[in-house]
């Protein structure tokens, strides 16, 4: 009996200890940054863990460590495409007032929640000190300004409104070149349909929202598109109806939805489909050697143009770094932001990531083929922000737009879609 009691007690205690250890472990890791020698550590929080992007981060890190020998770079990257998981963890850190020294976020409205909750420090002083207002395009500065303050440093730029097409399939269908307007686009889709190929390849639901933003921009024009995200926006107007009707018509030419953007883009590269509207990350996927990419040749297996009706406008999205209030190592974070904003830092990062620098004065010789084209467009085009990638609409709004489009795909009711978009704009709290 006694023996049994001892065993029971031992097991019970062991269990308690195990539980206590779990709790303790969580605490101590949180405090790690406060210790003496670790004080000079700079914790950089990002979701750049994939091929290309992780290399780019490493290149920037080397520059940072060379310029700041007294700081050590601590890579707090959390894996997961587009940062879903990283952002969930980040939110809990910020809520507990244990921010990293600096964190990655999509530039634009996606940061608004943090700004409103007072979690971010304005970076106007840095923009003044480094004269960043002059090196970034004026419209970019304007579009990332929230209530007269800027809260982030954009590191790279991707383009959303790109039409990828297969020259061979177009030729076969008798389409002379990439369509310039929405009407031409619909005509070209019809011609391709006659040949039996897929006119427009499409992926899962979010790629259809991605298509919608290009159709909105192509139908409304840059000015009216940009006005949609201001207080005076009118989502119930007739030109929105027109854009949504266009979207419906274009979607009627779409092939079977693929699982995600890659298989959809692949249909174009493989000559099964004629067109695909997707961001410029498609380029890397097409040309990279097999395993990571498809090993295709630009201009031959595939080609690109601005999405129909959007020539002259660059619909952008951008990764940026921020300065959270109460950052344990504020000076270190500022040193990092300076590297991220610098020509040297951006030119080290972007060729590896497959994007272009936000700065206008980048070293053009580093960017080849699509990236050279994109860089030239970035310098000359007017700018519009992406919906799906967090520039113009905050999370709640973007998510409501996604729901509206998802429901539309079921019922094909344009009036209902427009009403849902009106409500989404009203309820976004932006």
């Amino acid at each position, binding site marked *: 009996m006694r023996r049994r009691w001892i065993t*029971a007690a031992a097991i019970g205690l062991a269990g308690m200890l195990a539980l206590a250890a779990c709790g303790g472990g969580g605490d101590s890791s949180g405090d790690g940054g406060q210790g003496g020698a670790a004080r000079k550590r700079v914790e950089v929080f990002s979701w750049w863990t994939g091929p290309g992007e992780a290399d780019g981060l490493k290149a920037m890190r080397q520059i940072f460590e060379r310029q700041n020998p007294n700081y050590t770079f601590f890579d707090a990257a959390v894996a997961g495409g587009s940062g*879903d998981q990283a952002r969930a963890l980040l*939110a809990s850190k910020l809520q507990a007032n244990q921010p990293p020294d600096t964190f990655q976020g999509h530039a634009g409205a996606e940061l608004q929640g943090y700004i409103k909750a007072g979690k971010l420090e304005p970076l106007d002083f840095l923009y003044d000190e480094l004269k960043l207002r002059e090196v970034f395009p004026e419209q970019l500065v304007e579009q990332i300004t929230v209530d007269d303050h800027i809260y982030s440093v954009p590191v790279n730029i991707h383009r959303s409104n790109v039409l990828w097409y297969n020259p061979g399939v177009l030729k076969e269908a008798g389409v002379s070149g990439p369509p310039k307007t929405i009407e031409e686009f619909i005509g070209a889709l019809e011609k391709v349909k006659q040949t039996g190929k897929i006119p427009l390849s499409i992926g899962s*639901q979010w790629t259809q929202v991605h298509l919608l933003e290009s159709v909105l921009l192509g139908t409304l024009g840059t000015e009216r598109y940009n006005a949609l995200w201001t207080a005076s926006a009118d989502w119930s107007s007739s030109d929105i109806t027109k854009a949504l009707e266009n979207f419906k018509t274009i979607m009627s030419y779409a092939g*079977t939805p693929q*699982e995600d953007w890659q298989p959809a883009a692949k249909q174009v590269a493989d000559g*099964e489909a004629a067109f695909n509207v997707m961001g410029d990350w498609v380029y890397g996927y097409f040309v990279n050697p097999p395993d990571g990419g498809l090993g295709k040749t630009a201009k031959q297996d595939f080609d690109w143009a601005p999405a129909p009706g959007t020539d002259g406008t660059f619909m952008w999205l951008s990764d940026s770094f921020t300065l959270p209030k109460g950052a344990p190592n504020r000076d270190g974070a500022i040193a990092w932001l300076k590297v991220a904003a610098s020509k040297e830092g951006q030119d080290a990062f972007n060729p590896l990531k497959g994007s272009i620098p936000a700065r206008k004065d980048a070293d053009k010789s580093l960017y080849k083929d699509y990236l050279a084209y994109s860089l030239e467009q970035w310098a000359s085009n007017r700018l519009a922000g992406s919906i799906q990638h967090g520039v113009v609409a905050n999370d709640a709004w*973007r998510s409501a737009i996604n729901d509206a489009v998802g429901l539309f795909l*079921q019922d094909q009711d344009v009036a209902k879609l427009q009403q849902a978009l009106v409500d989404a704009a009203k309820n976004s709290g932006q």
Partner: protein
Amino acid sequence: MPRWLPGLLLVSPSIVAIAVFVYGMLGWNFKVALSDQHDEVSEGSFVGLENFINIWQETRWILSVQHAIVFTVVFVGGALVLGWFLAFLMEKGIKGEGGFRAIYLFPMAISFIATGVVWRWLMNSATGERAVGLNALFRFLGLDFLQWQWFRDPDWGMAAMAIPAIWQMSGYVMALFLAGFRGVPEELREAARVDGCNEWQVYRWVILPHLRPVTLAALIILGHISLKVFDLIVSVSGKQIITDVPAIFMWTAVYDAHDPAKGATIAGYIVLSVAIFVVPYLIWNARREKRK
């Protein structure tokens, strides 16, 4: 040393763990659901049942509830019928019963994620020349008229989504029913036959009534899996409205829209809907135990 102490010490870690990680979290979830914490960084204050009422105005919520109902009806019904039928065949003394039993039970060893990946391919919605998976099989067999959109069908998509779930769980239901069949004493069947029952009547009036507890248990197990279904749907179609269910809606509310209160509200509804299944069963079970 009181006699109850060692026992209490032995179970106390799990009591603590369950109190914290199940009931504590459940309580916390309802606290968030009853607040207006609509972004992750603000504090949020108590608003009563507002979230629980307002959500019924959302088209997406209504749709996801409808989807969950269709899925549950088809999945639970399908798995029960198929499982019962398989058990019936086994019970009739099929040759190589052990082998068949193993084959039918195997799918249960696979996770819903793996099942989903395979069935996503099988249920590919492309038709005609581009058909793959089951549609290609139909084409090959000259049964082109059977080709359809599977889970992308706007009306019956969720019924298609239930097929992999039925495939996975019917073996388990078979095992339950088989145990139930075997639990009916041979004497009862003999007695019924002696009284002039034909084979059908033996099943209808003697064996089926004995299977009632097993059926109920299977219903509860399948029902609660079905109402919480998440992994299968995510791996087949991801977070798309066309196959939306409450658990997916909860996921996008929390991680895409960054609206914890809404996510917690949906989680609350899921818990309540499962409770509707489980609590009466627990009460019924407790009463039965007492009677014994």
